[in-house]
């Protein structure tokens, strides 16, 4: 048999994974793909996260023009079709690879991946007139994100322009941070104050009845999404995944560095979240013992997940939604858990959030 034919038949067999794993294009491409893939969540959350990623990448490219107008991104199942109702709509691709000029002051009828779509200038140059137009043309109920480039904020409207719930606000930080325990805790603190502190700034659904400290049914999930989103923004290009399954349980948030140099840790940190409460979402009382048990198990989980992922740091973040915010860290069981499970690469952050504005004022005033 001619050698060339043998070579042809053997081509598949001779493929070497070793060569591939030394190929820079393969390694870099894998990292880029991991960064680009959407966050595993509901369609709305996925869209908002993709818009956040697109806009941040675009803002990282060049200086923002003075007076840059906001932009409205609308999630469209078929962007080209939905664009036909807007005269003069133009196709836009690779928004993440261009500076803010290509989206600022525009209504983007965007694909779910958030980086392409069809654009028209904001109606009358304003968000309000654009939103009114969206409602008129039957796009009032699709997820909508307003980007405020000057304030570096993204306002996410889950129920679209017609929805009567408040929006969820996400920061678009200018600077990247390095993953360390103090930086993680700093991001959690900033995000607590800016996005969760009171029902006024918190996402819709965080509280069923703030005055009575009755949390919403999805409070933990909402906190998890906002925290994850902020971590992804501040520590970019590090990605933050939720609910990663391991042999010892599900990790609330696992950070992965897609650009790591070989030999460096793949997972800079794992974060375990706990929501402490004095009432359930159905107004049943929650005992102090239950909350203590949650904090103790949080210590154990954070350490176990750090070990199984070989992560550099482990953080337990306890969002304290209780009416009476007693010091749980002083509880014997918590002290014991801390001594047993924690070392210099672990930290527990207690993050109070308030159902009543007066209580939040008290914290800030007492701090001053």
């Amino acid at each position, binding site marked *: 048999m001619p050698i*060339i034919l043998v*070579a*042809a038949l053997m*081509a*598949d067999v001779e*493929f070497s*994974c070793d060569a*591939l*794993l030394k190929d820079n*294009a*393969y*390694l*870099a*491409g*894998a*990292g*880029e*793909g*991991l960064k*680009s*893939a*959407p966050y*595993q969540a509901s369609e709305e959350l996925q869209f908002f996260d993709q818009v956040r990623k697109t806009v941040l990448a675009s803002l990282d490219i060049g200086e923002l023009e003075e007076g840059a107008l906001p932009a409205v991104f609308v999630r469209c*199942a*078929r*962007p*080209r*079709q939905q664009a*036909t109702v807007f005269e003069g709509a133009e*196709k836009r*691709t*690779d928004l993440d*690879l261009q500076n803010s000029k290509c989206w600022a002051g525009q209504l983007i009828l*965007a*694909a*779910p*991946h958030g*980086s*392409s*779509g*069809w654009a028209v200038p904001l109606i009358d140059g304003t968000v309000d007139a654009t939103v009114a137009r969206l409602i008129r043309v039957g796009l009032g109920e699709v997820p909508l994100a307003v980007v405020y480039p000057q304030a570096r904020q993204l306002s996410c409207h889950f129920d679209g322009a017609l929805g009567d719930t408040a929006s969820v606000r996400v920061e678009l930080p200018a600077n990247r941070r390095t993953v360390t325990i103090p930086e993680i805790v700093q991001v959690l603190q900033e995000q607590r104050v800016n996005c969760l502190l009171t029902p006024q700034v918190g996402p819709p659904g965080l509280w069923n009845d703030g005055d009575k400290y009755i949390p919403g049914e999805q409070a933990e999930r909402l906190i998890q999404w906002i925290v994850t989103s902020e971590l992804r923004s501040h520590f970019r290009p590090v990605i933050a*995944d939720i609910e*990663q*399954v391991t042999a010892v349980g599900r990790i609330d948030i*696992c950070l*992965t560095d*897609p650009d790591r140099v070989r030999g460096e840790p*793949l*997972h800079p940190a794992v974060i375990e979240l706990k929501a402490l409460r004095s009432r359930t979402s159905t107004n049943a009382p929650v005992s102090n013992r239950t909350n203590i048990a949650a904090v103790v198990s949080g210590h154990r989980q954070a350490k176990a997940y750090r070990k*199984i*992922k*070989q992560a550099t740091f482990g953080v337990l973040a306890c969002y304290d939604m209780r009416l009476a915010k007693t010091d749980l860290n002083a509880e014997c069981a918590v002290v014991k858990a801390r001594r047993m499970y924690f070392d210099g690469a672990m930290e527990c952050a207690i993050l109070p959030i308030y159902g009543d504005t007066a209580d939040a004022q008290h914290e800030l005033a007492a701090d001053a």
Partner: protein
Amino acid sequence: MKLSVLIERTRRRVRLIQLLEAAERAALTPISMEKLHAFAYLADVLSPVWKLDPFDFQISTKRKSPYYPDLQREIDSMIAAGLIEVSSQRYQRVGDDVLFSADFALRFSSIHANAVLEASMGDPDLVATQEYLNELASALASLADEDIAAAASKDIVYADSFTDIIDFQEMRGRTTNTQRAVQAFDVVFPRTDITPSRRLYMYAHYLGRRAHG
């Protein structure tokens, strides 16, 4: 026309409408001929990632980038039937040949195209296929626009083929080099949740990198 031929043509038309629908959702339309064939090829070669079988039986590797004559024939006949709209017609010279090219998209006003899409929603296999194609189109859309068509020609099976034909049927039940490359992401990112969707993005970006040499 023989029944088997009719069934095969119907199958191909449904596939084409599904490809264009996925491209529509990812804002890739109007999609150039080169990109559409590249998308069809990657949909075949990466189908095991989604636990699906390749749609096509084979493809010639003689051209610089993937090209399915049967797919092109269906595009042409569906343009004539009013299901697909064509724009930006152009000619390009490749060696001594002059090739016709254009951009394609579903015609929204076509009753028949919409009827096919609606009917396909009732078939679990077609629903799974559409979901896969939507995900792959989104993964390709995350590449720079000019890299999408070039990416497919850099696929390991296509680019490194020693034969004139890639036989997808023969590949069934075997692990192809593309699949090996997709599986090797677990070595690059151990202890990481690499979902099938992520594998599509990772492989697409690898091809994007290869396209840049």
